[in-house]
């Protein structure tokens, strides 16, 4: 029995729970499924043997690996399952069969994808994450959510199609379908890279993230924030570790969202930009590709899933209680939501990488790895982005929601289940951020489950040195001082209602404008063309009718003689041609 349980991909348990939840009208049963499935899946993952193909299947001549656990997939799977459990607690008050079902299936698909060993299986679960998660956006019920959901679906299905085509091309080129380290160059590999890039939010492919996530439901955004993009990070780490272009792609990803976040009014959208920025650190580390860097990417992904969920949960609680997440309509909420404020501040400190919080122990690995290969400009960009993170996630989010200008709103504290989920995430943020007072305690626990935990450099890597602490505190405290100075002199830009244009204007405005213009032209040209076609076909028909109808020219006897002569002449010509050609 134990062997059977250990041989099933834990993601399938969540998918099955999702299917059952879809058929269950009783909320209590769905709650049980949402809580029970991640716990069972966690036990299954912990019991699974490492580094062997646990479950395989042959289909259409392909060897598919449905379940394989190694040190890289383990930490991502573990983070996903912990997030799934926390999300289940956060959404306990939710009485929506569709949302429960889709959230569980989506989380299960992401977990299952982590443990796939071939491109076909990965494609199946990759697409499943797209088609299930989009319902978390649709469920908001607004027209904006519907349209954003459709844009999200379009890009993510495209990502899946690219992955399938790329995977097949790789198979035809090499005869090997397994997911493994790849080098950019062949068209198939390029397609896979692009497929991962869409989900990872590469520059110009990123717009779906800040477009769709803030429009999902309160609980949906929290679920979305943890899985899709980190699955892409896992896939990149698995296949493109050491790909130099990722260093620059990642560095750019860390910088530009910072500027969008500073002018954005919707605080859930600010967090989406912040998510994109954090992904940049991971992508950059993957590009460096050394064991220390890959440990940094994995550690950052783990910590990021926790603190980003925590921040989205706190903003979700604000949205749930006040009906808005816009900075212009918020402020002073600490008065009646002190626990949510406290948890938000813990998330803010973690993402800003303050010592004693999780971001500090994970980001240090990446920063050291990037500096270690002598990549000065990307390192400076990452350092710049670190100050930027403090601006939008460390200060702007808690300040504009809970402090600052008093909005006069006095909502109730978040529901208990939400507080419990936030508390659990906050506990992890602090727990893995603490110094290793004892072996296996604090950051040591996290470092021990990293993909290259036995790497000699990582084994002796110590984030809590005087040097690290001092430089990080200088960076953060002086940045906070800059905030205080800018506030005092009135140089901090006011929050304003409105939307911020992004590169998706190319298809949302220019593309849409072109389509609209084409439509207008067609409404005018179409009838004219139809008329012209009608006239031409009408004339042709009239001529044919005139020739072939019972009253037509050919029906008249007068032509028969001439036709007989012409037939003989043409037949003779044909025979002569045939004779000479032979």
């Amino acid at each position, binding site marked *: 029995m134990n062997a059977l349980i250990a041989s099933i991909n834990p993601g399938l348990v969540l998918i099955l729970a999702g299917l059952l939840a879809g058929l269950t009208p009783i909320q209590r049963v769905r709650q049980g499924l949402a809580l029970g499935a991640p716990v069972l899946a966690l036990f299954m993952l912990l019991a699974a043997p490492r580094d062997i193909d646990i479950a395989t299947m042959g289909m259409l001549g392909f060897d598919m690996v449905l379940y394989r656990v190694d040190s890289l997939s383990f930490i991502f799977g573990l983070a996903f399952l912990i997030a799934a459990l926390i999300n289940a607690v956060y959404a306990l008050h939710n009485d929506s069969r569709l949302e429960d079902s889709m959230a569980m299936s989506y989380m299960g698909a992401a977990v299952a994808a982590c443990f796939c060993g071939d491109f076909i299986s990965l494609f199946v679960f990759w697409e499943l994450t797209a088609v299930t998660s989009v319902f978390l956006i649709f469920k*908001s019920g607004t027209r904006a959510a519907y349209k954003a959901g459709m844009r999200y679906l379009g890009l993510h299905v495209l990502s899946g199609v690219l992955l399938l085509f790329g995977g097949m091309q790789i198979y035809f080129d090499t005869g090997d379908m397994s997911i493994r380290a790849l080098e950019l160059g062949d068209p198939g590999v390029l397609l896979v890279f692009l497929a991962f890039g869409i989900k990872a939010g590469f520059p110009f492919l990123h717009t779906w993230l800040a477009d769709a996530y803030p429009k999902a439901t309160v609980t949906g955004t929290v679920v979305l924030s943890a899985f899709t993009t980190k699955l892409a990070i896992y896939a990149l780490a698995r296949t493109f570790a050491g790909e130099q272009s990722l260093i620059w792609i990642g560095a750019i990803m860390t910088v530009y969202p910072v500027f969008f976040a500073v002018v954005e009014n919707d605080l859930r959208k600010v967090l989406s930009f912040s998510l994109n920025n954090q992904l940049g650190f991971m992508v950059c580390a993957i590009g460096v590709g050394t064991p220390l860097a890959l440990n940094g990417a994995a550690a950052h992904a783990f910590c990021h899933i926790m603190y980003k969920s925590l921040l989205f949960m706190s903003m979700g609680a604000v949205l749930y209680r006040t009906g808005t997440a816009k900075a212009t309509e918020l402020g002073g909420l600490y008065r009646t939501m002190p626990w949510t404020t406290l948890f938000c501040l813990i998330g803010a400190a973690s993402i800003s990488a303050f010592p004693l919080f999780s971001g500090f122990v994970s980001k240090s690995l990446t920063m050291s790895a990037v500096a270690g290969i*002598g990549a000065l400009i990307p390192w400076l960009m990452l350092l710049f982005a670190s100050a930027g993170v403090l601006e939008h996630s460390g200060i702007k989010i808690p300040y504009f929601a809970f402090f600052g200008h008093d909005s006069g709103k006095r909502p109730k504290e978040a529901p208990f289940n939400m507080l419990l989920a936030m508390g659990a995430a906050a506990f992890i943020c602090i727990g893995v951020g603490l110094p290793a007072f004892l072996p296996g305690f604090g950051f040591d626990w996290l470092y021990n489950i990293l993909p290259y935990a036995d790497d000699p450099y990582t084994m002796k890597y110590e984030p809590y040195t005087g040097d690290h602490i001092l430089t990080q505190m200088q960076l953060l405290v002086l940045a906070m001082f800059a905030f205080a100075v800018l506030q005092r002199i009135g140089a901090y830009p006011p929050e304003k209602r409105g939307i*911020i244009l992004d590169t998706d204007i190319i298809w949302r405005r220019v593309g849409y404008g072109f389509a609209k213009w084409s439509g207008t032209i067609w409404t005018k040209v179409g009838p004219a063309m139809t008329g012209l076609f009608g006239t031409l076909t009408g004339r042709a028909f009239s001529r044919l009718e005139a020739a072939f109808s019972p009253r037509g020219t050919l029906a008249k006897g007068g032509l028969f003689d001439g036709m007989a002569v012409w037939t003989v002449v043409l037949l003779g010509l044909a025979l002569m041609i045939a004779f000479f050609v032979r």
Partner: protein
Amino acid sequence: MSDHVTPPHLTDHGEHELPDDSQTSGFAKLLFGWTSKPWAGRVVFLVLALVSAGLIAAEVLLEAASGEGHHFRHAYFGIDSITAFYAMWGFFSFTLVVLAGWPLGRLLRRDEAYYEDEEEPAGEEPHA
């Protein structure tokens, strides 16, 4: 609803518009009540200034105490060996990001209904 909110300030609560704290919980007052005091902005500013100065002074002192040929701080590149490099980088990066918000806001901000009728107020009915 006003179009925008003036830059919030920790000490913005003037004498005539003290916030209503009748519903503020004891726990909230204990943890965060100080943030709405009239002196909070000045105190935060001063504390941050002092801590900033202290962190830079600590670096200078620790470097001096490291002795000839030794460095307290590990520098990967030439530029990061400058005294208070991280402090300056943090301060100026933050300032650049915030000040960039002025022109960027003018350049990129549009009405919420810019994309036809797509943008609607985010969220749902409050569950008070």
